């Protein structure tokens, strides 16, 4: 019986090639989109799961009560590390660490600047990255280093790296005590090597000092592993108030919390002290889009199949007349939809495999199809069956319900209910597609809007290099040489790069401060020529006078900081910071150093300098030549390090990465959704034109022109598309306003987007159906009328 079903299904496919092509093509595109999104989503969920026993690993964070608002910080103090390590038997391991950043690694003549972390000796017991050589005890000795496979290869070539020495930051030789596999791209922690934190304390006296400081001196990242069987719930209340007994404002206002590793990647945005959202919102949105596109493809199948029912009606009538039960007919029609779905699945897998390289490039993820995994096939075949049932049920039940007597007498009429539901389904398709188009347009508008926002400083030809101990020693000479060379027009150093604010700290006192009020502001230590180099403009007062003595009691605020401190006449007023009274000597215009989507960060600038060398290339020198010249000078003063640099405008553009990615994905999926919808419409238009052949013939005989027939056939579809626009617009508006809400600097959505999207949808629809409509309109009426 089943064999017979398949045979008939296959013959039907083959007989109606154009129709089969539309059905399979649409489903292929739909399944491919769903598959691609499915792979992307499962990749996002796979983050960090490769680590054995990963579920017990946590990052320690602080919920800081800032005048009623809860801000969540990821920096903690070393005192907290020790307190957690020693005071709680539920916690198995604690490891302090710093952020992933560049250090100079040298072996013989090979000098590299690579990103790595410095972490406590239990770090690799918390995060059990697989070892190739050595083990997790390798961080016990301060003068050791654990490196990844690629780092070993880059430094030692094919030689065995184990127990070899690497000179770090042109200072000490650290012995390789372990080699771990390269960190997969779906790891939240990324580094090329780990230096023991104990070495960090030896190399940097500031860190050693921090070990003995209070809870308030936060500057380190903290990881912990709970003992097996211990739940976070059990320990959360015990650690929450652990800092509060200490008498300092920062500690008193901090709750200690932990975030489990499985939430790091997806729940990366804290609101009111809870990680309820973040990247997960995009993952959810795209999951929904994937399902919608698949549903759009299924609707094609439903519509085309039921629309063609008249053609199949005879077959149904005859089968029933010779004794087929309705159930058997349902199974037969479902067999057809299963066959079509699986053919589409095959092509979809092929298509996805084909576009994966581009998709990887677009998303920056290393997504592959897990062909060799049993669960993958289980899910895919399961989903394909579900799709086949979803798409095939309605046609199967509809077709099998025909009354054989009516069918065979030829008196069967398409029920008006069937026509209505067909139209409703088309409206659903187009509503989804149009909503996606509107979303794409608005996402792009928002990105463009933020990109065109005045930054408050000049990004062009601005370059950043991170200092090292050698450069720090020779800073004056370096600056001199660079300016003399003609390649650099201006140079400064600062504690944050031009595109970030690395440090936020509390203003101890300011005029009009309320009791118990805490004010955390961006804190940047700068050296001479900072504002000049960055191209920031002073609004009032004056720049630092470049005298360490005079300037050490001065502060410059940006406009946002003045506003934050509620100062009417800021110049000449005093704030207390670093335990000193600082005179406000100048106010600079706001610059977008943090997010281009948010309001400018309130920031204070102090005269000191920092680890970022920021310099602007001279306007009349070719970039390549300039970099060559500059590299030579850097190499002269720090021969042990590789010269590395970042262009500030590139760094700035990276701030748009997430939005650009979302925009591109939305655009691609919107395009595919409208394509699939149009494919269905094309089929429906062909069906309608065929069904109305006689009417068109009569109308032509009565004097209708080609244009009039074209309008007649297109009108109904256009009405559906307009209805779809009316449905899609408010829905899209609702979701997009929610999305835009998180951006302080955002566009206001005007009516143009909706009107233009509607016009675009109508034009696309017309283009799709006109082929069929015009074909029908120019056909010779004599032929259609003779057939009566």
């Amino acid at each position, binding site marked *: 019986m089943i064999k017979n079903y398949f045979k008939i299904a296959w013959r039907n496919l083959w007989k109606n090639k154009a129709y089969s092509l539309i059905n399979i093509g649409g489903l292929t595109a739909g399944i491919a989109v769903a598959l691609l999104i499915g792979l992307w989503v499962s990749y996002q969920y796979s983050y960090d799961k490769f680590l054995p026993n990963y579920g017990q690993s946590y990052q320690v964070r602080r919920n800081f009560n800032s005048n009623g608002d809860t801000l969540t910080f990821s920096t903690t103090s070393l005192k907290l590390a020790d307190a957690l390590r020693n005071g709680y038997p539920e916690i198995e391991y604690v490891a302090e660490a710093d952020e992933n950043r560049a250090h100079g690694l040298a072996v013989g003549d090979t000098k590299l600047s690579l990103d790595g972390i410095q972490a406590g000796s239990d770090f690799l017991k918390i995060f059990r990255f697989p070892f190739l050589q050595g083990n997790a005890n390798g961080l016990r000795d301060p003068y050791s280093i654990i490196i990844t496979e690629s780092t070993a290869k880059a430094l030692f070539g094919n030689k065995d790296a184990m127990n070899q020495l690497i000179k770090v930051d042109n200072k000490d030789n650290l012995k390789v005590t372990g080699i771990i596999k390269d960190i997969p791209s779906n790891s939240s922690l990324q580094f090329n090597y780990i230096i023991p934190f104990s070495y960090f304390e030896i190399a940097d006296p500031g860190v050693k000092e921090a070990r003995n400081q209070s809870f308030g001196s936060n500057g380190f990242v903290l990881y912990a592993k709970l003992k097996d069987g211990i739940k976070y719930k059990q320990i959360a209340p015990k650690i929450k108030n652990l800092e509060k007994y200490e008498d300092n404002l920062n500690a008193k206002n901090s709750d200690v919390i932990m975030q489990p590793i499985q939430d790091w990647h997806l729940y990366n945005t804290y609101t009111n002290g809870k990680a309820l959202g973040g990247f997960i919102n995009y993952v959810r949105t795209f999951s929904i889009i994937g399902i919608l596109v698949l549903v759009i493809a299924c609707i094609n199948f439903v519509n085309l199949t039921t629309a063609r029912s008249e053609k199949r009606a005879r077959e149904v009538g005859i089968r029933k007349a010779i004794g087929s039960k309705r159930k058997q007919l349902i199974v037969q029609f479902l067999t057809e939809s299963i066959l079509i779905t699986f053919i589409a699945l095959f092509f979809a897998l092929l298509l996805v495999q084909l576009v994966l390289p581009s998709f990887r490039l677009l998303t920056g993820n290393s997504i592959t199809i897990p062909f060799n995994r049993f669960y993958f096939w289980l899910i895919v075949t399961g989903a394909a069956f579900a799709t086949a049932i979803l798409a095939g049920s309605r046609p199967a039940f509809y077709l099998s319900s025909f009354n054989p007597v009516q069918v065979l007498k030829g008196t069967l009429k398409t029920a008006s209910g069937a026509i209505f539901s067909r139209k409703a389904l088309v409206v659903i398709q187009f509503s989804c597609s149009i909503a996606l188009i509107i979303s794409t347009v608005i996402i792009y508008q928002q990105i463009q809007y933020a990109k065109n926002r005045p930054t408050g400083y000049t990004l062009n030809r601005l370059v950043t290099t991170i200092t090292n101990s050698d450069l720090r020693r020779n800073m004056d000479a370096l600056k001199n040489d660079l300016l003399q060379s003609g390649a650099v027009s201006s140079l400064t150093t600062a504690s944050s790069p031009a595109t970030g604010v690395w440090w936020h700290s509390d203003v101890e006192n300011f005029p009009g401060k309320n009791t118990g009020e805490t004010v955390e502001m961006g804190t940047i230590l700068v050296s001479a020529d900072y504002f000049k180099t960055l191209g920031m403009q002073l609004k009032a007062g004056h720049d630092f006078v470049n005298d360490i003595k005079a300037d050490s009691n001065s502060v410059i605020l940006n406009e946002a900081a003045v506003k934050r401190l509620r100062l009417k006449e800021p110049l000449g007023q005093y704030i207390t910071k670093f335990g000193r009274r600082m005179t406000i000597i100048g106010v600079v215009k706001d610059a977008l150093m943090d997010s281009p989507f948010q309001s400018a960060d309130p920031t204070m600038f102090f005269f000191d300098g920092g680890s970022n060398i920021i310099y602007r290339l001279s306007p009349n020198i070719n970039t390549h030549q300039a970099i060559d010249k500059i590299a030579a000078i850097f190499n002269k003063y720090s021969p042990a390090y590789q010269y590395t640099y970042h262009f500030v405008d590139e760094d700035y553009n990276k701030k748009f990465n997430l939005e650009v990615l979302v925009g591109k994905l939305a655009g691609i999926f919107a395009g595919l959704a409208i394509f699939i919808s149009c494919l269905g419409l094309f089929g429906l238009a062909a069906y309608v034109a065929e069904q109305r052949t*006689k*009417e068109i*013939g*009569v*109308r032509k*005989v*009565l*004097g*209708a*022109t080609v244009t*009039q027939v074209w309008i007649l056939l297109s009108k109904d579809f256009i009405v559906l598309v307009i209805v779809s626009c009316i449905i899609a617009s408010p829905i899209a508006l609702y979701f997009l306003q929610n999305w835009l809400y998180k951006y302080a600097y955002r566009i206001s959505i005007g009516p143009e987007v909706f009107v233009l999207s509607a016009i675009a949808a109508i034009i696309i629809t017309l283009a799709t159906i006109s082929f069929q409509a015009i074909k029908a309109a120019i056909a*010779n*009426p*004599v032929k259609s*009328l*003779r057939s*009566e």
Partner: protein
Amino acid sequence: MLSLQHISKYYQAGGNKNYVINDISLDVDEGEFVSIMGPSGSGKSTLLNIIGMLDEPSEGYHYFVNEAVHQLKEKKRAALYKQYIGFVFQAYHLIDELTVYENIETPLIYQDVKGSERKAMVADMLDRFQIVGKKDLFPAQLSGGQQQLVGIARALIAKPKLILADEPTGNLNSKQGEEIMELFSKLNKEDGVTIIQVTHSEKNAEYGSRIINLLDGRIESSRKF
């Protein structure tokens, strides 16, 4: 009114020409009522379609109200057709989705007649055919004879000079058929409408002023009364 000269229509079948119409010449004057007769496949309908400009001849010259139709462009031909010709079919060919009223109105819409004027003209026609009570019914709710009445009303609404009827009574019983033929004859005599009908029935053919017999695409005989 119209003149066909050496008109042929053939289909290429392999190397042979398969003639449907073979060298027919025919003149019809204004006010005539011509009946075309002949067995199935003799080319009656094709000839009618050629006269009605729905079909093009393979060879020959076709003049209609002093215009050389065989030389006219599609657009001009359509205009000529719209202005002068009304068609009545054996199978009525009413549009199922439209009411009686709307069916009759349709040709006027295609001729850009204004709304108010259309209303008056349709009302007039409904009145004349005594089908006012049926104006809101759909074709499926009418008998065959009533449907053909609507078909004729629709053909007449635009005041054509020439009515082409392809077996107008073919699907009707004899009483209904008689009524239709009476109507044609009245139209011909009182309103001076030229009528060319194709028919199988000798009796119906005799309503006309001339009977042309076709056989295998040629005129076998032509009688005038």
